[in-house]
């Protein structure tokens, strides 16, 4: 563990001040499941942890009817998937929150942390992008909102400026006829980093796909919103043919790398497979069918 200090923020403004005073090596400490490992293994220089888990804003979880969902940036996964309203209205978020790490990791890890760690393979990010979520950022210059899809700018890099932190994530309310699904591929059945992950969101008008979003993770420097996949789906009923066209679009759009966790060929192929599977499940959910996130 590198030499570092710990400070507990007493308010969002206090957190902003602590971050600003701490300089570029100050980091927000939410669940800590990434940053504590980075500090211990010295893969990222950190001199100060600013703990934001004692603030109502960062620990929020509100899903007012019709007004969307607000997830505090530090709200741990277990609270997210344990919430009946979230489970009903935002099942793809539950899909992700319930498979990040094991149970003990989910006791701490947060979607805000997942976003800010900005790993291309983050499991929490594709569902947020597919749902059109927005990160609410506060900093020395006040508050700003950045769409989840624009948040990460590269592996480990994001739009946060000096002294800025994500306070919460806002997710629009589901519209009638919509269905969402997130899946990842890992070699084991738990405790792995995604080789590829995909979130899909569909909105039907009758049998016709009125809106579609397919987001592929771990297959490009940041999670990738595959516009061509959406184009292949919108305006038609969802069929195995349109699904295959969307999957082919996902395969064509990804820019994966070869690393110890997966090969280019494997990732490209899996992007197609998971696109198909998430679309089928999303359609089921749109029809009101039960698709379980986990046992």
């Amino acid at each position, binding site marked *: 563990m590198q030499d570092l200090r710990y400070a507990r923020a007493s308010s969002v403004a206090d957190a902003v001040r602590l971050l600003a005073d701490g300089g570029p090596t100050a980091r927000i400490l939410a669940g800590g499941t990434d940053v504590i490992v980075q500090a211990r293994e010295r893969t990222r220089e950190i001199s100060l942890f600013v703990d934001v888990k004692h603030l109502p804003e960062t620990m929020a979880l509100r899903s007012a009817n019709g007004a969307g969902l607000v997830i505090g940036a530090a709200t741990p996964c277990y609270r997210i998937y344990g919430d009946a309203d979230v489970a009903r209205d935002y099942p793809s978020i539950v899909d992700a929150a319930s498979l990040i790490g094991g149970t003990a990791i989910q006791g701490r890890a947060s979607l805000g942390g997942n976003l800010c760690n900005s790993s291309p393979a983050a499991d929490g990010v594709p569902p947020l992008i597919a749902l059109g979520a927005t990160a609410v950022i506060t900093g020395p210059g006040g508050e700003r909102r950045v769409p989840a899809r624009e948040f990460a700018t590269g592996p480990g890099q994001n739009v946060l400026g000096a002294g800025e932190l994500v306070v919460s994530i806002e997710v629009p309310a589901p519209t009638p006829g919509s269905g969402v699904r997130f899946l990842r591929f890992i070699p*084991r059945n738990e405790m792995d*980093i995604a080789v590829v992950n995909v979130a899909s969101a569909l909105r039907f008008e009758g049998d016709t796909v009125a809106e579609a979003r397919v987001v592929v993770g771990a297959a490009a420097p940041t999670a990738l919103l595959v516009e061509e996949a959406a184009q292949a789906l919108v305006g038609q009923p969802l069929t195995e043919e349109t699904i295959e066209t969307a999957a082919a679009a996902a*395969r064509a759009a990804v820019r994966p790398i070869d690393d*110890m966790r*997966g090969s280019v*060929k494997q990732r*490209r192929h899996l992007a197609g497979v998971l696109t198909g599977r998430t679309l089928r499940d999303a359609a089921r959910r749109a029809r009101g069918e039960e698709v379980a996130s986990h046992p």
Partner: protein
Amino acid sequence: MVAPAKSPYRVVGTRPVRPDGTDKVTGRANYGSDIRLPGMLFGRVLRSPHAHARILRIDPSKALALPGVKAVITHTDFPAAEDAVADLGETSSNLKWLVDNVLASDRALYHGHAVAAVAATDPHVAEDALALIEVEYEPLPPVLSVHEAMNEAAPRIHPNMHTVEMMARFTPGPRSEHDIPNVASHLRMEIGDLDAGFADAEVVIEREYETGTSHQGYIEPHNGTALWNEHGELTVWLSTQGPFAMRDSLARVLKLPVSKIRVVPMEIGGGFGGKISAYMEPMAAVLSKKTGRPVKMIMQRDEVLFGTGPTSATYVRVKVGAKRDGTLTAAEAYLAYESGAYPGSPVGAGGMCMFAPYRVPNQRADCYDVIVNKPKVSAYRAPGAPAAAFAMESTLDELAEQLDIDPLEMRVRNAAVDGTRRIDGVAFESIGNEAVMTAAKESPHWNSELQGENRGRGIAMGFWTNGGQESSAYATVNSDGTVNLVIGSVDIGGQRAALAMQLAETLGIDYEQVKPLVVDTDSIGYTFITGGSRTTFATGWAVHEAGLEIQRLLEDRAALIWEADRELVHYDDDGVIRGPDERSLSFTEIAKQLHRTGGTVQGKADVTPEGVGPTFACHIVDVEVDPETAKVQVLRYTAIQDVGTAVHPAYVEGQIQGGAVQGVGMALSEEYVYDSEGRMRNASLLDYRMPTTLDVPAIETILVEEPNPGHPYGVRGVGEVPIVPPLGAIASAIYQATGVRPRTLPASPRVLLEELLPDDEG
């Protein structure tokens, strides 16, 4: 015979709670890393970032200037180093290799090779100090596979080393006429006439197989705490499978007589063969000597993976010939195993075990021990056998398919029986091989129908033999009718229970009356490691002998008490001593009288038992392969094993289940991943993928109890053979599910997908 209808024993064969159980479910048990001594310092190790590099300079001055840092050591701080350097050449360089592997001398030979160590007042400071030790390296080209290593153009990792024709590891024979680059030794085993055997065959197939490097994966990292006192006496507390083996290693590296070293075995958090060799312990000792304070060292997980001994990555080529009716006529194997940076892979054991379940009159195995720039391999559960068995079992399966014979029937037809000669010439005696195959044939699993798409069932055999070697035990009778049983065998998974049970059986008393105690190397006679499937067998034998001595002494005492003819006094199986005139004393009754009739009684034994019993296993596995992702899910698993007498059946089952799941890991997910520079890329339990609860089903076990005639209670070693069959069984199941036969393991989705994908994709 699956299980004896009625056990002849009272205690053996029951399932009592282990004596150390309560401490282990309350967090009170003291493992090696739990020790805390006054004034203790904390040590850490600096490791090479290069797989192969000359070490030009090590400058610890900045580290030593850091407040709290008390000492830094390098290779030259070992007293044996000077002699060891002179011990170059082609003859046995054991000592140099041992010392160099603990701390690199002139060259770092693998990523993670220790180059310096530091002791400081606080673990954080020790870690800070590592970054301040300056090491100048000259990187050299690394050699990373047996194929690379054996190529004429390959750099010689040990330039003075020549291939020796060996009887066995470390035993130089004549220098080979063909000096193969980086091959430390070549061992050939042969029986019969191979050419005639193949000439006799009607079908011959030859196939190649490879396996990756896997690690024992014990959850407790290596640890060691040393105190070298002012009188030159060294005490080391640690988690080890072999306190006496560690004492021997320390004596050699530190040039100390064994009487100056006391090794205190703490509870151990898994070993599987990996906690025998010395790694940090000599460093902790020298750091303690330099500072005059106790020094505690604990490895981080990445150090465990790249700085200790995993098992060999392997290449095996096997050729098998058979008649049309399935009768095997000849089998030949070429095995090349990575030994890591120093000689000593378990390739000979691989060659010895792979054909053992079968009656093959003509056999040959050529075994090559190959140096590469990776960690020196260490023992891992049935060392060398899983990879070799994978090759043979897969080939046998393919042969059975070609001949249209059921794979289990193919094995039954060729089963080795009593009198069958193994490749090393030994003729089997009292083996349970056929009984295991019969039990497999009759098992619910084999007789169930496998339904569903993309599913397949595989079956494979495995063979291993267990060890004898030295063990000591003594037992003292307490006045309340209990017995303190003192042993030198570390309890790694229920050994206290299994040993206490054998003593209770011998004495005809209850299991609860025996209180086992594991002690340090000053407190008991030499006891070989807990490993090699030997503890319940060999230490059990010592315990039994100690019990027999107590019986004799109590007979003496009863005769004295009764003033009876000694010849008429007998200790009976029920723990009652009977004499003339229907006199009798129970164990508890006589125990009460000991102090008033001449003092306490102690039985002791030092044994080196023969009569080790070979063991066979047959595993059946059902898998489902996702045709789109190539992910393999194990659906059902049954392990059938000849266990001799199961002393504590629950721990026997546990050994089988644990071994099987380690084999599943080898087959599907576990492997070291290196980059082209030889750096290990996945040195964490996130990316070195051991099976989780979700990756395996319940492991059904069928215990075939074929008692070992060479042991008082019929015990055979059970711990190792269960890791042998899983690789072949799973590979065959994958073939049945997909039509693709994996020849490289692990059959990770990444590798298997390449085979399953249509060529036109992408």
